[in-house]
């Protein structure tokens, strides 16, 4: 075996066409999980193989790629995937949300609003929103076919009966264009409203589970709730300790072993951008 050159963006053209066909079907039926012949990738299953295959199928030489994990560009797996495409597709990469044409993400949607023409590719571990209620694929496919989503409402209702509110904080189920129940991937429910009527194209790839689904631009994406228990997102008590941003998702950073901690932006690009613009920590009298 000699060292061999790989095709542009690693996958061979036939495989890309197969994935693109699945993507077209997914865009045509928003929220529907399209089976596709997921390939073995040179990174492990569960580490973004679905997202990587979708990115490889849609990326072109002129694209500018951004890869984030937990909202950050510098987490190890994001670095690894960005380096992969820089190597096999020789595309320009960026950490700036506004500059990117293609963004692959794990667990977050960037704070900076996405615009028309941008594509957001999600890495999805378990595409089936009903999976933990019904482990069998044969059953859940029938449930989707019949729009039989009572089980999920019962689950959410049981949460309310037990805790007084819905106890799902991430991978919070959504209804797409009034038809399919969809797993938004394990993004915090904080990010769910960003999916609704987004001008960007949102593509979801689950490699191990061999499913692709999509939300075309300006599609209705509604988080499930009840009239008397409307959907709400997480709120943080304090602004970002670095840039002072409010209304953004924050990570808790443990400072010592005495309970000291601080909250900083999960979206590192957003935070850096604000600090470059001169924003800093908000001065509060409540400094401990």
């Amino acid at each position: 075996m000699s060292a061999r050159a790989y095709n542009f963006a690693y996958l061979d053209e036939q495989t890309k066409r197969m994935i693109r066909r699945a993507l077209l079907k997914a865009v045509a039926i928003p929220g529907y999980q399209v089976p596709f012949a997921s390939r073995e990738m040179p990174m492990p299953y569960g580490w973004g193989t679905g997202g990587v295959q979708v990115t490889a199928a849609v990326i072109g030489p002129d694209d500018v790629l951004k890869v984030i994990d937990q909202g950050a560009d510098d987490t190890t797996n994001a670095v690894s995937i960005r380096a992969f495409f820089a190597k096999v597709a020789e595309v320009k990469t960026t950490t700036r949300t506004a500059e990117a044409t293609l963004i692959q993400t794990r667990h977050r949607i960037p704070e900076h609003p996405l615009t028309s023409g941008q594509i957001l590719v999600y890495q999805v571990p378990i595409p089936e929103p009903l999976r933990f209620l019904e482990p069998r694929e044969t059953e859940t496919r029938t449930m989707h076919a019949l729009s039989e989503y009572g089980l999920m409402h019962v689950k959410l209702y049981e949460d309310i009966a037990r805790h007084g509110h819905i106890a799902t904080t991430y991978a919070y189920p959504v209804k797409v264009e009034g038809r399919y129940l969809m797993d938004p991937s394990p993004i915090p429910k904080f990010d769910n409203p960003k999916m609704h009527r987004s001008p960007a194209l949102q593509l979801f790839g689950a490699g191990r589970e061999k499913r692709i689904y999509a939300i075309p631009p300006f599609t209705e994406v509604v988080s499930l709730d009840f009239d008397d228990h409307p959907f709400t997102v997480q709120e943080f008590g304090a602004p970002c300790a670095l840039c002072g941003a409010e209304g953004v998702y924050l990570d808790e950073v443990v400072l010592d072993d005495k309970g000291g901690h601080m909250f900083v932006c999960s979206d590192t690009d957003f935070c850096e951008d604000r600090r470059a613009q001169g924003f800093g920590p908000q001065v509060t009298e409540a400094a401990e």
Partner: protein
Amino acid sequence: MYVAVKGGEAAIANAHRLLADRRRGDRSLPAIGIEQIVNQLGLAVDRVMGEGSLYDRELAALAITQARGDMIEAIFLVRAYRTTLPRFGISVPIDTAAMEIERRISASFKDLPGGQVLGPTFDYTHRLIDPALAEDLPVDAPLTREAPETASPRVTDLLAGEGLIEPDGVVSSEPPGDLTREPLEFPLSRELRLQALARGDEGFLLALGYSTQRGYARTHPFAGEIRIGEVEVRLFVPELGFEVVLGRVRVTECQMVNQFHGNAETPPQFTRGYGLVFGQAERKAMSMALCDRALRAREFGEDIVAPAQDEEFVISHSDNVQATGFVEHLKLPHYVDFQAELDLVRRLRAEHASERKREAAE
């Protein structure tokens, strides 16, 4: 003060450099050659070829050394390489009856045409660690004899002559499915199920096969036959109008013969479980055959009561490359989701505390 977790890129590069160092180990010792692995760790090579679904001994050996002997990692390397290879065509089914046999045993007949051939087996060895192997002492050449003139028909063919066992079935004119090129959809056809089992994790299938012997979907199996040896791989070339031999592969085939009491349509007869694996991999082939038979429960109208009979359960979890990836992905950061859960638990605890306080006050 908070220090951002930066420098992922440099950390990865350094970690891989350290990995390369640990893989090589003490530089004063000679590196293991690929030929040495192919020759002296042949069964490890066979396992990597089988579960990696790629018949290439040198490549498997290279993967084993690159993976530092971690078999699942080696299998993964082979799979990731395999997926980039073009598929030229589908071979003519291999003929295991025409196998050049090195080992062939039947547990259901004392003697049979072609005879019992033990071959290179661990069976009947006493598992006593041999200190002599620590030194490179000369090893005797094996005793061999001419291959017998008589053919060695498969035991299942012998039984089929009397109609005692279900027939082989008709070969479909449709090209067989390929689970590496099409998404799996349950329920599976038998050929796809066998493909999945053939690349399934040896340990997982062993445990499931074992469970059928212990009463979880009992199938009353007999090892009708196990044969190991080389078979020709042929390709029909339409342009030429005839079959061309591409080469030879070594395979292990196991045919389990199982009791079946019959039903309204079918008289009592034996049924089969089938196992076929690259290389010499007897444990895997036997486990595969046990699982195959258990998974045919639906076909025979048997009650599905045990994990080994549950196709979705077995096939969805048999692939060790998928399994290891997803289990190990828990190492990746999950702090965004964990933050959401932290927030929830804090809120629930606060509500719990205020509830207790309110109750105490009442």
